């Protein structure tokens, strides 16, 4: 897998993402500056976390207008893999590549803690390598991570299997206490209808090595690699 890790002014998780793909998984990876207009021969794109443009106006609102995003949209239209993490998720929703929006956390506090994620849909390039029944313990760090979508949109993404991860407690129940930010239906991550673009607020790249205390997040990136070698049939 050749992975392009985007960099915007204010991105701060780009190095972690590249490290996981390149050094932990041994894949090819490189940075792509937001002003570039081409993704080269990348098989996958990661839009990393951070505070692009200082979260000015809205998180991800200005980054979505960067020159590279035209190439990302074309890449996604062709079926290329795009993963947005935290601010990357915000950028992808702002760009219209993912449904819904991210708003201020319910309790108005910046949350910095570990969460448990239940994988809801395993038939995507981002979840196919996550063992069934295995929850991921992944850190979150955000102030605007509350996922919102209107009722019709929620019904739509539920019916099309677009909800990829939910916040759950240690018993696997998606209750209010396990929801760090007030997201509707405890949604932590979603994908588009086709299944090739995904986003999540938690940081799997910070839970991909045992030395950091958690490694269950690596399965997200392993899924992408697996898809590149043995593609899952995407939705039309």
């Amino acid at each position, binding site marked *: 897998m050749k992975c392009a890790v985007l960099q915007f002014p204010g991105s701060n998780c780009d190095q972690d993402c590249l490290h996981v793909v390149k050094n932990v998984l041994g894949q090819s990876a490189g940075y792509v500056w937001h002003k570039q207009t081409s993704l080269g021969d990348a098989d996958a794109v990661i839009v990393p976390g951070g505070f692009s443009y200082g979260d000015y106006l809205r998180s991800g609102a200005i980054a979505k207008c960067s020159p590279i995003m035209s190439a990302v949209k074309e890449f996604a239209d062709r079926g290329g893999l795009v993963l947005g993490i935290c601010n990357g998720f915000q950028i992808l929703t702002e760009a219209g590549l993912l449904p819904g929006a991210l708003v201020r956390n319910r309790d*108005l506090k910046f949350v910095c803690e570990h969460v448990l994620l239940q994988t809801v849909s395993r038939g995507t390039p981002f979840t196919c390598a996550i063992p069934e029944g295995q929850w991921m313990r992944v850190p979150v760090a955000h102030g605007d991570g509350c996922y919102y979508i209107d009722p019709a949109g929620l019904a739509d993404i539920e019916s099309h299997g677009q909800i990829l991860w939910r916040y759950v407690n240690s018993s696997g129940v998606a209750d209010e206490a396990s929801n760090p930010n007030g997201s509707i239906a405890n949604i932590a991550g979603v994908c588009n209808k086709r299944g090739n673009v995904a986003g999540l607020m938690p940081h799997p790249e910070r839970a991909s090595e045992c030395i950091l205390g958690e490694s269950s997040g690596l399965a997200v990136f392993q899924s992408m690699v697996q898809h590149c070698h043995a593609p899952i049939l995407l939705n039309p």
Partner: protein
Amino acid sequence: MARFRSGIDPIPIRFVEKSELLWKYPTIQLCFHPARSGSGQATYHGMKARIIITPKKAVFDPQGKTVQNTLEHFGHTGIEAVHVGKFLEVELTDREDLEAVEVRLHDACRRFLTNPVIEDYTLEIIHS
């Protein structure tokens, strides 16, 4: 600067000169008469667009709720809701056709200045 009946002056708010105090829409109070602003702003002789952005009613507004709780803590009653939004003022350099300007600005609002999934907006063009 306005003072509430309690005698406390918690937040600087400018009154709309032609409207009563609207507890529900504090951001509208930013549409003040320039001559009474007292803000020391430089005189501007072009067109201005004033855009008020508020969260959609269906979206939970924790900031608005917190502000409401704090106002009630200070003893203010009769507040149905508070919505915290944004105010943008766009100074336009060219005296173009008003209709064309409005079309462009509405497009900018829908594509960039607001997120239509979670925000509503109002747009007003002011001639100086």
